[in-house]
């Protein structure tokens, strides 16, 4: 087989058309071939088209292991990718940080980028002092540490900021982070590589509010939040485009768990064994077009109700977490057929004990 060369060179547009159909791993191999290939894989036109063709059914699943209660060390954090088939749980290598920081949680995942927080355990340190914010692309393996926001001083050292990450629109060039700490709201944009204070319009009038579970949908971040007054839970949303907050009340009379979910492209929440989803109420005549109506979507018949709970949604099925004596296991439940799937393979680490987060993910070439 000789070096049969095609005497046809396709224009860049057509080459981008072809490349946009290849998986990221293939494109990363080509980026090493020459300077032209390298710059092609960083071309925002290709990155955008490639992202739109990508399979958005993937999820990242975090778990913890090696927690030594006696010495009170931070647990280690592992991450896997849940692919097209539930049995496809693939372990992913986390970035290696130069200091001895350990990852603690995922703050956001959008357009192929994942925002992680890592901490160096130091006693008597305020949260942001010992934390590092990392933007990571798991498939191109690029990552970088972002400059940290400067927080006001006069608060209790255990107070934690609420962080969020996402893209304000479909442009993969510019991502944003939001940091909420007491009444101080700051936004970071990739293009400026810096934090700026914002008005925080629509932020609830409480002294301190902290969001734990989050989801992001169409350029809006949602947190399951509680205030210092401990007056129950609500949902706090932040629109990355206009940088405005909204408070979404939850229907009274139910006991709402803190976990937020995405169910068929809507915000969803769990109450014991029921999943409820939010829809904007178009029929509301008061003119407030942000009125949200919650409706129950389905109930789950837990077999051992005290040891099982809703963990997340994956491809229109529910991932249920079952607590066994030393660790958690997950299995899939179909709300329509009510069938239960097999238990998912548990993480390989010997001292694995529990799952952390399940976040939506898509593979892309997006640059950190």
């Amino acid at each position: 087989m000789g070096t049969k060369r095609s005497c046809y060179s396709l224009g860049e547009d057509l080459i981008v058309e072809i490349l946009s159909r290849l998986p990221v791993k293939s494109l990363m191999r080509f980026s090493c071939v020459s300077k032209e290939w390298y710059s092609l894989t960083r071309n925002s036109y290709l990155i955008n088209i490639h992202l739109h063709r990508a399979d958005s059914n993937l999820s990242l699943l975090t778990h913890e292991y090696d927690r030594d209660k006696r010495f009170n060390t931070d647990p280690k954090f592992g991450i896997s990718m849940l692919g097209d088939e539930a049995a496809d749980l693939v372990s992913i290598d986390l970035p290696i940080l130069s200091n001895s920081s350990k990852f603690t949680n995922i703050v956001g995942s959008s357009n192929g980028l994942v925002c992680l927080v890592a901490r160096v355990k130091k006693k008597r340190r305020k949260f942001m002092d010992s934390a590092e914010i990392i933007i990571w692309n798991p498939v191109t393996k690029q990552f970088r540490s972002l400059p940290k926001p400067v927080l006001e001083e006069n608060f209790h050292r255990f107070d934690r900021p609420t962080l969020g990450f996402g893209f304000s629109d479909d442009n993969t060039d510019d991502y944003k982070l939001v940091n909420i700490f007491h009444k101080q709201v700051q936004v970071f944009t990739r293009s400026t590589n810096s934090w700026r204070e914002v008005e925080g319009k629509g932020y609830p009038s409480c002294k301190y509010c902290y969001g734990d579970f989050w989801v992001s949908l169409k350029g809006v971040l949602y947190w399951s939040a509680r205030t210092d007054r401990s007056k129950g839970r609500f949902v706090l949303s932040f629109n990355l485009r206009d940088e405005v907050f909204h408070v979404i009340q939850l229907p009274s009379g139910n006991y709402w768990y803190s976990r937020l979910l995405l169910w068929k492209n809507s915000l969803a929440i769990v109450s014991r064994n029921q999943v409820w989803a939010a829809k904007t109420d178009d029929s509301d005549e008061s003119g407030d077009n942000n009125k949200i109506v919650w409706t129950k979507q389905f109930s789950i018949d837990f077999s051992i109700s005290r040891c099982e709970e809703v963990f997340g949604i994956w491809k229109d099925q529910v991932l249920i977490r079952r607590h066994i004596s030393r660790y958690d296991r997950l299995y899939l439940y179909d709300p329509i057929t009510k069938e239960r799937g097999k238990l998912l393979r548990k993480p390989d680490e010997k001292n694995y004990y529990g799952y952390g987060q399940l976040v939506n993910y898509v593979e892309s070439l997006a640059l950190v």
Partner: protein
Amino acid sequence: MSRVFKLKSSDNETFEVEEAAALLSETIKSSSSTEITVPNVKAEILGKVVEWCNKHAESEDTKDQLIKEWDAEFVSVDQHVLFKLITAADYLQIKELVDQLTQRVGDMIKAKTLKTVEMTYPTFNVEREVQEELKSLGF
């Protein structure tokens, strides 16, 4: 009554195409004349494009299994024929054909190694030793 379009290849051969097939091309659709010369595309290639258009104009449901099989056969051609078809389909702006052809190239690349990619894209200067070295780094 349906119009007949005349497509002329770069080597002066003319193909007559019925309106339904011809209008699959955005270029023809937006052209004021029914006689279109396709530069840099020889008769052998233009003929195949016309064949694709005729097939797709006569089939009502493009999701039909039979036409999918026909399409799969159609794109199973030599690399350089494939590239020439892409260029022709791109000039004529036949989106679905460009999609099928580029998907085929993508599938072929996925299965191949770096070495073969070098052979199909001669516009880039490639250092084989560097490739080998980088490959061994796991990328």
